[in-house]
């Protein structure tokens, strides 16, 4: 890969990671808090209790702050597609364009219309219409996320498309296959529920602060009950969708699974590492023990990945060297090719594309058909043709491994946390347990860490691919000056940091002020 400017690739990746991670600071709270507010307002409309209205309006203000600061931060990612990732943008073409266009229309019409009713409509529209608007804002925000995540799911598992060698674009032949790809569905459900859990923890944390200060007691107590019930239900669903996502990873991205578990040597009845530390500097072809230590559950990785405790789970070394049997997407048992063989097939595909283009220019129809057939036969390995070393298919194992284990550990911690909160609330112990109130506040940053590490697993774990097996990151970047990317990296860093500081300052100030009128 020496002909690629690695500095350009790395800076482009760093910039995209920076903007995506900052964007994701704002999004999950919007997704989850919208539903929590909708539930609170439903209680207000059902009971007619003005305190519920006050509670709803308070959380709506915090929702509004987060929404306002975060809105449009995702557009920068689209700027980057056009400038830094122009090859990729062209190559994915319609597949990415259609979901993003639907997202834009939905976000604009649903969120911007009903959010105005939600904020300005108190006492101006009927209670029921206001409530419907609040629910539609929640549904609209989550539907916006659907289209983005469908596009991301397609990059992890390209389905419902074919490659058009005349335009160098992937074209959608089956919209429903793209939309209902099992990877996309699991990704969507897992991602939005992570936002619900984060929002529930946020509400509990802020409410706990009020209880510690002895202020807004009724607001805090009621908010905690709604958020804890919402959080417990969604955190269990989060674990289930996490299992679904990991199952899809095992089927479609085995290298990512191997990296998530630090599994170098494949085995039947593979254990799941619960806690562990990796040996620094471990390579796939050395004899070092991959783990300094580990606590594991026997056969669990095989069971979770393949629904059989005795199933073979390929490790990093197996995937690089090939030779193991697996079942492909059509249910056919096959012997895995080595990375070297895939690289050869990829180079054949790329050469076939070049020859196809030359034959088309020369109006040689026989040659056009011939090269097109070669391209089609080898297209599933197209991206491997850009790699010169089999080791290039290995992602950053330590980063993926630790991010995955932090995410999972925190996910289970949150389930326990919600159970504990509900237990204490039920036995009326919550308010007098100061340590649990402090713990609740501490949970807020942990929820953000879990959320970010989830994306690190998803995106770092799939390297070197920007589209699984078809386009590696190195071939997706625009050939621009890397210094330009460096400048905009620091520019974004400054802008986003300023936005984050603004968010935190306004949010803290508003929390300190508390709800406007009355209250107990």
């Amino acid at each position, binding site marked *: 890969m020496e002909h690629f400017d690695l500095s350009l690739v790395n800076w482009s990746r760093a910039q995209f990671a920076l903007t995506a991670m900052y964007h994701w600071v704002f999004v999950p709270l919007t997704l989850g808090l919208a539903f929590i507010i909708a539930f609170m307002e439903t209680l207000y409309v059902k009971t007619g209790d003005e305190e519920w209205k006050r509670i709803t309006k308070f959380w709506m203000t915090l929702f*509004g*702050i987060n929404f306002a600061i975060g809105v449009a931060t995702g557009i920068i990612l689209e700027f980057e597609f056009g400038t830094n990732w122009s090859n990729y943008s062209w190559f994915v073409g319609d597949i990415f364009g259609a979901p993003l266009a639907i997202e834009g229309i939905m976000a604009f019409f649903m969120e911007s219309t009903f959010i105005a009713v939600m904020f*300005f*409509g108190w006492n101006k529209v009927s209670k029921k219409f206001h409530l419907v608007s609040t629910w539609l804002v929640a549904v609209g925000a989550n539907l916006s996320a659907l289209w983005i995540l469908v596009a991301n799911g397609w990059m992890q598992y390209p389905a419902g498309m074919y490659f058009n060698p005349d335009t160098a674009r992937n074209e959608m032949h089956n919209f429903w296959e793209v939309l209902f790809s099992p990877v996309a569905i699991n990704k969507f459900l897992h991602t939005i529920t992570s936002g619900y859990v984060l929002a529930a923890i946020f509400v509990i944390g802020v409410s706990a602060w009020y209880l510690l200060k002895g202020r807004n007691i009724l607001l805090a107590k009621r908010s905690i009950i709604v958020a804890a019930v919402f959080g417990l239900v969604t955190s269990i669903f989060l674990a289930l969708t996490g299992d679904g996502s990991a199952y899809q990873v095992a089927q479609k991205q085995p290298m990512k699974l191997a990296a998530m578990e630090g599994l170098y040597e494949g085995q039947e009845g593979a254990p799941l590492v619960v806690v562990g530390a990796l040996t620094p500097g471990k390579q796939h072809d050395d004899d070092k023990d991959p783990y300094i230590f580990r606590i594991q559950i026997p056969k669990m990785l095989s069971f979770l990945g393949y629904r059989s405790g005795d199933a073979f789970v390929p490790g990093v070394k197996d995937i690089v060297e090939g030779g193991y049997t697996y079942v492909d997407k059509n249910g056919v048992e096959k012997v895995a090719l080595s990375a070297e063989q895939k690289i050869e097939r990829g180079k054949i595909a790329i050469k076939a594309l070049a020859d196809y283009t030359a034959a088309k220019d020369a109006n040689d129809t026989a040659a056009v058909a011939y090269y097109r057939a070669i391209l089609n036969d080898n297209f599933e390995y197209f991206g491997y043709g850009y790699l010169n070393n089999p080791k290039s298919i290995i992602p950053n194992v330590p980063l993926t491994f630790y991010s995955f284990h932090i995410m999972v550990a925190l996910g289970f911690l949150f389930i326990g946390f919600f159970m504990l909160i509900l237990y204490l609330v039920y036995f009326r112990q919550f308010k007098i347990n100061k340590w649990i109130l402090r713990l609740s506040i501490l949970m807020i940053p942990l929820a953000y860490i879990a959320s970010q590490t989830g994306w690190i697993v998803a995106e770092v774990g799939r390297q070197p691919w920007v589209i699984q097996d078809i386009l590696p990151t190195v071939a997706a970047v625009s050939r621009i000056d890397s210094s330009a990317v460096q400048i905009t990296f620091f520019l974004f860093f400054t802008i986003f940091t300023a936005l984050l500081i603004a968010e935190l300052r306004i949010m803290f100030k508003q929390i300190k002020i508390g709800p406007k009128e009355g209250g107990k």
Partner: protein
Amino acid sequence: MDMIKRIFRFYYEGFKSMTIGKTLWIIILIKLFVMFAVLKIFFFPNILKRNFKTDEERSNYVIEQLTNNPKK
């Protein structure tokens, strides 16, 4: 016409009665200005749209990019 007036008044009164919202709108407007009037125009051109006039030219360029790389 009456409907349009009512919608206008709805938004007008809504914006007028905002407290924290005014600060947020200032942030939103500054942010959008920086994003679209500065970043998009000066730092983030769409390379393929800027450099080529037709989709055919863009396709040819990307094919060249994709097929030349492994040969170098």
